[in-house]
């Protein structure tokens, strides 16, 4: 399956990646898997750490699946399906 990943903020500046299409053999995977995959890339190692951190849910990363915050769904276990869009933001604030 193919998942569109959009990277923002300091992660985007550090990795130079703004979006990429992730090809995964499975039909659906938990978000944690996607973060692991992305975490292999230069500048995105923080995502690997996030995926490994079992209590990572409390970190204020903003992870949206189809515009919905996964922490309002099943957190890192939220199931991602073919053709969906994941947006990833490092902890951010402003106003």
């Amino acid at each position, binding site marked *: 399956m193919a998942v569109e990943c*959009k990277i*923002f*903020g*300091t992660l*985007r*500046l550090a990795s130079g990646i*703004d979006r990429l299409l992730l090809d995964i053999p499975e039909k659906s995977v938990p978000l944690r898997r996607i973060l692991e995959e992305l975490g292999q890339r230069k500048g995105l190692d923080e995502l690997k750490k996030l995926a490994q951190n079992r209590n990572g849910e*409390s970190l*204020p*990363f*903003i992870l*949206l699946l*189809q*515009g*919905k*915050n996964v*922490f*309002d769904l099943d957190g890192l276990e939220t199931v991602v399906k073919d053709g969906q869009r994941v*947006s990833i*933001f*490092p*902890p*951010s*604030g*402003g*106003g």
Partner: protein
Amino acid sequence: MGVSGKTKFLLLFLRISTKWQMSIREEISFIFKNVPLSNKGKRRPCYLSLPTVYLDEWRLFIYKLIATLNRQRQEVKAVALAKIRILNVDLSTGGTNIQELDEKISKRYIGGRGVGTYLLSTILKGDEDPLSPENPLLFATGPLTGTTAPTGGRYMVLCKSPLTGLVACSNSGGQFGSELRRTGFDVICITGRSDSAVYLYVTDGLVEIRGAAHLWGLDTHETTDSLKEEIGSDSVKIACIGPAGEKKVRFACIINDKHRAAGRSGVGAVMGSKNLKAVVVKGSHRPEPHNRDRFMEIVKKRLEILKSNPVTGQGLPSLGTKVLDNIINEHGAYPTRNFQTGVFEHTDEVCGEALVEKGYLKKNRGCYACPIKCARVTSLPTGNKGEGPEYESGWALGAAVGVEDLIAITEANYLCNLLGMDTISCGMTLACAMELYEKGYIKKDELDGGPALRFGSSEALVFYTRQMGVKEGLGKRLAEGSLRLAKSYGASELSMSVKGQELPAYDPRGVQGQGLSYATSNRGGCHVRAYMIAPEVLGIPEKLDPQATEGKAQWVKIFQDLTAVIDSMGMCLFTSFALGAEDYLDILNGFTGHDYTMEEMMECGERIWNLERLLNIRFGLTADMDTLPRRLLHEAMPQGPQKGHTVRLSEMLPEYYKIRGWDNDGIPSSKTLERLDLKTV
């Protein structure tokens, strides 16, 4: 300098006078009270006026002398637990005096926003015209302003708003607030109206009212540069108005240190209505903590927290507030084309990341004592330089008007700063005008030959921004703000405002609690009274479901109260991304030497909130004004992740009133007033 003639005469009197006042217009006049006329101890007041043309040579000398005398007479020391000192200036008479606030009041209202609101409540009866001499203009610092507390450089400007007719209370950073505190005054309260343009020059315990005819008409940068040159010092700090304030644009702001703004609710128009062009401050008294060592320890610990927190230590310094463009847009709550939708298809072009990638961002900069440094220093390929855009400004002059041209957005932002206009109200008034035009209300011949008011037109953006600021052509009508504009066409529902103030950059159809926060904000459409985006979107301090309404009333109340505390202390709200209520309590007690408990501190916030509410009621506020534009309540979001949603305000508002201890009409019950010591207001 040699002393002879008139000077000698003057000195003679000065040396023996015990009380004096002075003012400067075309002439300098001294009023000495209690001047002993002979050795026999006979005393009477003495008035002395001299044309200013004589003064060139020895004016400075006299000022210096007066300053010395003054310091001897009045210990101007901003020590902890010292009484809050208010400098009253009546521009109608030129009279000044110093007032000390009762300690009980200071403790009850903390300082800054709280004390300022208290003072407003003692001055304003309710029916005053905001642009009349009766409306006071207050510059208020908090106990932490000018200290080493992280972001301890904030101050508040308060008055009755010409935009909303309600309390205006605008916060700003930069260096002005901390310098004001160092003059030994905590608050400057300006009343009356000067006959001619003037500026205030406030130094250690001293105030001068100086002519400013030569500055009238200058933009905020020119004014700041001219004043520094005239005074001959680069270290004075200046807050001033631009042409928009002079012309009383209803959302004119006050700009300090060239780039920081007390932005909202038209405080600049009130300053303009007083013929007051600028306030210049220079002081040398460092506010002393109650216990220096302990305070330093408290500060050090909080600095570490702010540095290691990913938001305040990394996100804000590197991308500034504009990191939010994509977050809010991806969330589907990025108000686009006057809130017609919540997704802007060109966000990639205008976002914070683009500002970096296009090379417009040069560096970040911070306000006084700020470790976060979220301000953007930018320069454009056109050669223009400045600060900004921040998230709100970039949005108001971008997505809100459908413009995707980052250069035009930044140029319009620079223009707002130069002319002295609130970017949010400016952009959103323009957005309203564009919708009025596209829907056929504003006719082509009303444009006075200006470009078509179409969404997405960068030409229209820059053209009408200038026209608003100088009140020319259609700009005259735009300068009244979106509500008055839309109303004049019989289409008030197209003004995206609450209580007459334009809404900021979050569509509450995607963030329910923020909707309640907008509807109940004491200064109308505003995001910094309870920033519910933090828990509902950013997950700080914990993640709340943005579409849930349950429990939001309680969150909004706590945020409103805590924000009132932070504002009153003189710190920046952005610290709250990393710090919690306990941290503020520690800092507040550590500096002042007070022994607030957590309950007492939060009660201060609640008291301030309720006093603002009471003042608003005095100004004519009714419960039906605690609402949102019809579009947000009844038109479902047409697309994106929040598609189909409206704001379910009726599920939250009654609960909010109840938690606040207000009756069904939104009026604080007498029990609530008693509990908060507000019975006498």
